[in-house]
């Protein structure tokens, strides 16, 4: 089917406004391939079914919508964690602010430099999981990313990483348009935790491809920063081998538009994939979690736990799908998406989906949207807890199921503290 002219024009306009990186060495082929795929698919349009609840216009436009830089003297969320920091400012690597890219059991390169090496392990992976993730639903902004990413990190984990890697994204220019692409490969039995934080840019397009080999474990905790006007579209593409584990949690506070897509394929038996998110939005806030989990092996477990707190006209979106392929017996799939609407102006749109082709599976999904429990609120107040504090307690309690998906207690406490801070700043 030929691409509609409007889509074709929008795609070409976007590409023309980008300075495509000079693709040399092994990156040339996947980038060219991505460019061709993008031209065939076209960038998302607001009439696309997959973008029914979220207008992609400002993520697609050639021109970057301006986003003021939020000044804050707050410390960064993972500052107290013993970690290896890799810093980007508006998508540009900052060597000075970053640690040495060396960590026992881990090999780290930058995409911008790795292309020069003729042979690189990432050759077989860069753009591969992204390409796999294009069916059955196209994700053209990820394809754009593969074609046009200016930098990113390539992380090869051969053992148990001695500490987490923290990707820190600063936002400094109100018209920055950053495109980063990370590739992470965990060998059999390897373990790594990746932390991400920061508002990144006025507009941020990020892809993370994660290949988790048999018995390996990948942990991911991310916060998306406080800048109110920032926009972001992010994709995680993960492939899981036998008995491997993938766990990802995202906290989002503010941001005029965020779309986080997570595409996971369970390809080896007995693997587990947990993906969770807690977001808090006030006013001009639109947050979209789009998740697609494919069970293609036996006895795998997947969990999706998404909670959204919305106030003053904020919008939350959840599109989550569990696809159980033929033969993926003993699948245990769980999906919950809930929103707490703190006023009548806010809105939650959800599209939970199950598609099952195996006969011995246990899958459940639920989606709810509601206000603060008046009974519980009165109970707390009758014990002397002022209304504002009682409301915050109940709000944190609502978010707890998602936050508890973070296994590490220290990281979990850090996230709770941030969420509490956000609520306290808004107390009447």
């Amino acid at each position, binding site marked *: 089917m030929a691409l509609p002219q409007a889509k074709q024009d929008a795609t070409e306009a976007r590409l023309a406004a980008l300075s495509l990186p000079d693709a040399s060495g092994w990156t040339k082929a996947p980038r060219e391939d991505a460019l061709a795929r993008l031209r065939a698919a076209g960038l998302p349009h607001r009439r696309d079914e997959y973008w029914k609840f979220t207008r992609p216009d400002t993520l697609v436009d050639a021109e970057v919508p301006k986003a003021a830089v939020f000044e804050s003297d707050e410390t960064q969320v993972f500052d107290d964690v013993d970690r290896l920091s890799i810093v980007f400012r508006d998508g540009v690597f900052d060597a000075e602010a970053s640690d040495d890219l060396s960590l026992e059991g881990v090999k780290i390169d930058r995409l911008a430099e790795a292309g020069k090496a003729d042979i690189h392990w990432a050759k077989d992976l860069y753009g591969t999981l992204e390409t796999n993730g294009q069916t059955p639903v196209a994700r053209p902004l990820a394809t754009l990313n593969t074609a046009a990413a200016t930098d990113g990190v390539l992380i090869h984990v051969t053992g148990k990483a001695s500490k987490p890697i923290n990707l820190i994204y600063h936002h400094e220019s109100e018209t920055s348009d950053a495109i980063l692409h990370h590739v992470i490969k965990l060998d059999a039995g390897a373990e790594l935790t990746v932390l991400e934080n920061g508002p990144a840019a006025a507009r941020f397009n990020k892809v993370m491809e994660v290949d988790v080999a048999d018995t390996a474990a990948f942990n991911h905790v991310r916060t998306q920063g406080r800048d109110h006007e920032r926009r972001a579209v992010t994709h995680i593409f993960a492939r899981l081998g036998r008995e491997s584990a993938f766990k990802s949690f995202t906290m989002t506070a503010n941001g005029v538009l965020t779309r986080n897509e997570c595409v996971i394929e369970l390809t080896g038996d007995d693997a587990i994939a947990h993906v969770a998110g807690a977001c808090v939005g006030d006013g001009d806030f639109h947050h979209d979690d789009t998740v697609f989990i494919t069970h293609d092996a036996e006895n795998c477990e997947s969990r999706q736990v998404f909670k959204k707190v919305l106030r003053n006209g904020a919008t939350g979106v959840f599109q989550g799908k569990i696809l159980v392929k033929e033969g993926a017996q003993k699948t245990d799939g769980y999906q919950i998406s809930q929103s707490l609407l703190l006023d009548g102006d806010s809105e939650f749109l959800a599209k939970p989906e199950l598609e099952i082709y195996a006969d011995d599976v246990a899958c459940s999904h639920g989606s709810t949207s509601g206000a603060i*429990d*008046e*009974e*519980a609120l*009165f*109970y*707390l*107040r*009758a*014990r*002397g*807890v*002022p*209304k504002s*504090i*009682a409301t915050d*307690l*109940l709000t*944190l*309690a*609502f978010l*707890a*199921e998602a936050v508890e998906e973070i296994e590490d207690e220290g990281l979990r406490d850090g996230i709770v503290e941030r969420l509490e801070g956000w609520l306290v700043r808004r107390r009447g």
Partner: protein
Amino acid sequence: MLEIKGLKVDLEDEDKTILKGVDLTVEAGKVHAIMGPNGSGKSTLSYVLSGRDGYEVTCGTATLEGEDILGMEPEERAAAGLFLAFQYPVEIPGVGNMTFMRTALNAQRKARGQDEISAADFLKLVREKAATLEMSNDMLKRPVNVGFSGGEKKRNEILQMAVLEPKMCILDETDSGLDVDAMKLVSQGVNALRDAGRGFLVITHYQRLLDHIKPDVVHIMSDGRIVKTGGPELALEVEKNGYADIKAEVA
């Protein structure tokens, strides 16, 4: 301690009068019981006093130590020393029982201009009170009332009462859903709090709770009014003859 005069209350959403002029004074150090048939307005009285939404006071006053409480927010009434032990304690998933009680106690102390209690002192206080109510550490750690049996919920109410040390305690059908053993524990917990400076208003449908918590004064409520007041013997009379006799007598 608690003085209610000519209190008339309507349901906010319906054109219906529930309390039709209640007069009641509970003195410090005394235990008053209110008995009455279903629908007589007993629970409404407890909700109106604690500040629950949905009721409209059309007439009358209620004061706690001379202070008007009807104009206060629920949390202000609590800080002023009023406590309602709920007939149906609410389950609050995600909020730990200890966090809840500590937040409540410190909020009340703050409202009264007192210093907050330290985490260590609070832990000591709660453990001590919980022990007398035979409440396990696990019950303290769990989310508020989640997974608690009926009896455990009521014990948790009394624990909160013991920790918060209110001046005026209202017990709304605390005996409902209790077996004999739980009733004894709960009553012991209440009796341990009886004190010259504290008033109690015990709302109950049955006399049996009053075997354990001995009242000084018993009121019979019917159709939104207190229709008869007497000593403990009045409760026994109700137990024997039911409410019909009293209703007939008053009518």
